[in-house]
């Protein structure tokens, strides 16, 4: 755990009183994580950056509505999630959000040869993630890469904990199969 002279909760309180510097510090602590979350669910860097800006702006405008500063992370990700899904709806209004897929290669990496290099492994993982449904992918991103608890994920995704669990479990089963050939050679 990294020691922080000023906790997020203090910064949130200062920012809610209008101290912009406190909010900027808060943004600098969270921007990379939020950007990467949005990048993984949109698959597009430009969109992820725009959405990150929008999410932080909206968070600032609504900071006074945040009752418990300890819940800042799920609250912020909920805003980011909503921003991303409203963009999806705007772009493809006739398509069901659950059917949306991230942009990327249609065919995954075919793993062959006798050794697996880190870059190859990363590409294979990215490809495996792309094969998941958008909901499963987002669940994996929030759980594995962002480290949220199931309860927090339920808050972010606005769905029951049981739904969150089933998405994560299903995604893990698929990833286990997708990544099995790589694991047997490259990861120990």
């Amino acid at each position, binding site marked *: 755990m990294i020691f922080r002279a000023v906790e997020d909760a203090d910064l949130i309180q200062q920012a809610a009183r209008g101290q*912009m510097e406190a909010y900027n510090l808060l943004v600098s602590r969270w921007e990379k*994580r939020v950007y*990467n979350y949005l990048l993984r669910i949109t698959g597009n*860097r430009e969109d992820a*950056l725009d959405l990150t800006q929008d999410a932080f*702006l909206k968070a600032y405008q609504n900071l006074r509505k945040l009752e418990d500063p300890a819940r800042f992370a799920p609250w912020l990700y909920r805003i980011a999630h909503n921003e991303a899904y409203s963009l999806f709806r705007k772009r493809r209004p006739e398509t069901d959000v659950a059917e949306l897929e991230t942009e990327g290669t249609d065919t995954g990496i075919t793993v062959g040869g006798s050794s697996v290099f880190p870059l190859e492994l990363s590409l*294979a993982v990215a490809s495996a993630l792309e094969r998941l449904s958008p909901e499963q992918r987002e669940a994996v991103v929030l759980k594995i890469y962002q480290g949220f608890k199931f309860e927090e994920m339920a808050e972010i995704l606005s769905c029951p904990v049981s739904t969150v669990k089933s998405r994560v*479990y299903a995604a893990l089963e698929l990833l*286990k199969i997708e990544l099995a050939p790589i694991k047997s050679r490259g990861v120990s």
Partner: protein
Amino acid sequence: MNCAPFDLRDYCLHELSAAERQQVESHVKGCGPCREELDRLRLTETALLTLREEEIPQRIAFVSDKIFEPSPWRRAWEGFWGSGARLGFASAAMLSVALIVFSLAHTAGSPAAPLTVGVSNTSVSNAQLQQKVQQLEQRVADLNRRSQEQDQVMQRAADAFDYLERQNSSVERAGYIQRPANGDFK
């Protein structure tokens, strides 16, 4: 499916308590299939974590928009005088102080007044009292007038500060700006 006391996926995903984790670990030591399943899950997680986070191309920073934001002077001024209750309390406090001062001054002037007071003395005292009250009312009115004048001066000063701040903050007019990844503002 496994026969562990708790779901191995929850174990891998750090959703179990310390006691629950310990139970799973002791079970896995003696159960081959569960150990293999746990290995598969761990390897999957390890493979997933090889995908590194990317640096954000442009860092995000916000600046306050001074055009729409009141100056500290105005905020302090409006914060104090904006409340009607505070204004009423201040007026009542001024009146109370005036009455106390008056009563102290009056009693100090006649510390041992006799109990038997002549008619002429009483009438003189009443006249003096009336005069004093009138003087006091006049002073209170003067104070109120001066206070209003001071209010107007302070208001003009706050307006002037606002104007100066708006002039100074013309470069920071946008609601937010981006700053490059090296931290330097554009």
